């Protein structure tokens, strides 16, 4: 168990810089999720912590020890790969024991650890099978078992659930979370799935184009996104954005309607409203011309445009709502749930 410290971490491939001055402190026993769209550098960051990629500049410290130059095996970490990377010619038991055998642990000790890990993951009955005889979910457990037996200071997960089907993914997600809480090992988990990120992480690091957009708890990210990117990435369906003008007596929407006043800002802003924060209200100021309706059962998504403009809007209404195409629905929104962003810097403006 250990804390991890990333200081001014940069990675370049030749002249192309793919990670820019990443900073972050991860506390002992914390579960950190690195999330971002594909190509944002999240896997590269994880692989740098693992020691599979070199560090161009900056420092990675695990438990107060600089590990930049250490081999992966010397960093006291364990990694779970996306495709599991189990050795196909070894049985499950041998797969789990391989790292320990190299570390020259005694037979008895290796056996004890493998049995313990098998207990935790309930994979006793597969111990003597080959990986190819296992299903995806079972392979996933073995890959985790291989990480557990090493008893490392840090667990690293590289999109471990993306090869599983939806139902199994939800189940394994819970198991990973429970397991991590039980073992209390500091963990870094990489994913592109924001639901996975929100449910697993104590804190989330949102990466975009090699920059850290925001690093905070899931609720912080949801309630107070630091930038337009985070606001649009976290939450589903994504936040609605409208260009607006902040004036003394309120926010002027493109439809010519004014929203609540009392804002400190003046001038051009980007207004963000979450679809689930739009409340149906016959006298509400926001009118949406419906173009398409998605029935999800528990709630209904109304896709359309802000009436009189061509700005796309989505509203999420609980329960079943029937809406004809072309009809106009009106919504109200609580002022506290509005987000304002600077259209130039894309950063959050504090109200």
């Amino acid at each position, binding site marked *: 168990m250990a804390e991890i410290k990333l200081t001014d971490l940069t990675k370049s491939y030749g002249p192309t810089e793919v990670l820019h001055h990443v900073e972050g402190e991860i506390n002992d026993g914390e579960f950190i999720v690195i999330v971002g769209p594909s190509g944002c550098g999240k896997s590269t960051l994880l692989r740098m912590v*693992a*020691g599979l990629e070199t560090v161009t500049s900056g420092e990675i410290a695990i438990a107060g020890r600089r590990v930049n130059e250490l081999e992966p095996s*010397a960093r006291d970490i364990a990694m779970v790969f996306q*495709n599991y990377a189990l050795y196909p*010619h070894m049985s499950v038991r041998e797969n789990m024991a*391989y790292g320990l055998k*190299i*570390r020259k642990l005694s037979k008895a000790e290796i056996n004890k650890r493998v049995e313990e890990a098998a207990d935790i993951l309930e994979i006793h009955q597969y111990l003597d099978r080959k990986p190819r005889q296992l299903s995806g979910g079972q392979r996933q457990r073995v890959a985790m078992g291989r990480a557990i037996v090493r008893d490392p200071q840090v667990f690293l997960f590289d999109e471990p659930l993306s090869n599983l089907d939806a139902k199994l993914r939800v189940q394994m997600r819970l198991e990973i979370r429970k397991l991590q809480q039980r073992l209390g090992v500091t963990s870094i988990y990489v994913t592109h799935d924001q639901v996975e990120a929100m449910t697993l992480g104590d804190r989330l690091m949102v990466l975009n184009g090699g920059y850290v957009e925001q690093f905070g708890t899931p609720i912080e990210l949801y309630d107070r996104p630091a930038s337009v990117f985070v606001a649009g990435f976290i939450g589903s369906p994504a936040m609605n954005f409208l260009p607006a003008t902040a004036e003394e007596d309120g926010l002027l929407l493109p439809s010519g309607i004014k929203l609540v006043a009392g804002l400190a800002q003046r001038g051009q802003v980007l207004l963000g409203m979450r679809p689930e924060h739009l409340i149906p209200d016959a006298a509400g100021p926001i009118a949406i011309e419906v173009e398409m309706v998605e029935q999800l059962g528990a709630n209904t998504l109304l896709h359309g445009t802000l009436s009189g403009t061509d700005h796309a809007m989505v509203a999420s209404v609980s329960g079943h709502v029937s809406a004809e195409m072309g009809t106009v629905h009106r919504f109200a929104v609580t002022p506290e749930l509005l987000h304002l962003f600077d259209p130039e810097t894309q950063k959050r403006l504090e109200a």
Partner: protein
Amino acid sequence: MVENRPLTAILTHFMLVLGVIAIALPIWITFVAATHDAARMTQVPLPLWPGTHLWDNLKQTLFGSGLSGTEGAPVWLMLFNSLAMAMMISLGKIAISLLSAFAIVYFRFPFRMTCFWMIFITLMLPVEVRILPTFEVVANLGMLNSYWGLSIPLIASATATFMFRQVFLTVPDEMLESARIDGAGPMRFFFDILLPLSRTNIAALFVILFIFGWNQYLWPLLITTDTSMTTIVMSIKQMLEAAEQSPQWNIIMTTALLAMIPPIFVVISMQKLFVQGLTETDK
């Protein structure tokens, strides 16, 4: 497509039987010739059914001096020479190709691609092309009439290196990374992970290389003058011209029969792995 017309069935079977006969007949003749005595083999027409002298012929061929009236080595020694040469060539080729493919795929050293292409270019230089300089080198090293001389010049192999390179490229990168996290060094990774993963490919290559080595004719002919170093394949040819007498077909054919056995044994015993090695893609 399921065809069920009797005429096509008869025709296809006829063609298949014809093909089998075309391939099997010479082997049958060889076998028949090995079972008659020398006198019968000089008469026309040649016998088509086995005679009664198989054991006599085998005994004389294997443990006698081969042809009567010559100073040739007994055939068991030739069989042993051929076996030693074929084994040294195939095992040597596999060992060297595995290591060089391992270096080319997994290590980043200066002129890596240059090395790869240099190996690749030797594909254009089989023994027959470089036979004079190679002979010179082997002669200067004093390796004439030795197993080393027979096998070493044939060991370097671009084909096998290239094949193992392709095999290693199909091994996912995560396998290496996972081994690095487990703390396996390069050689440990090679022996514990890479070798077992290419097991079937090694077997397939072994079959091909063993037969390649076994069938070598020109090179052994050139560098062995001592009859105790003769290989079986070249001895068959020599027997034909030996001793200014009419060829002793019964002995020659027995020798040919014996020469066929080891390759057949290797192919049959490794058939399953061989097919897997050539068709399997899943790692």
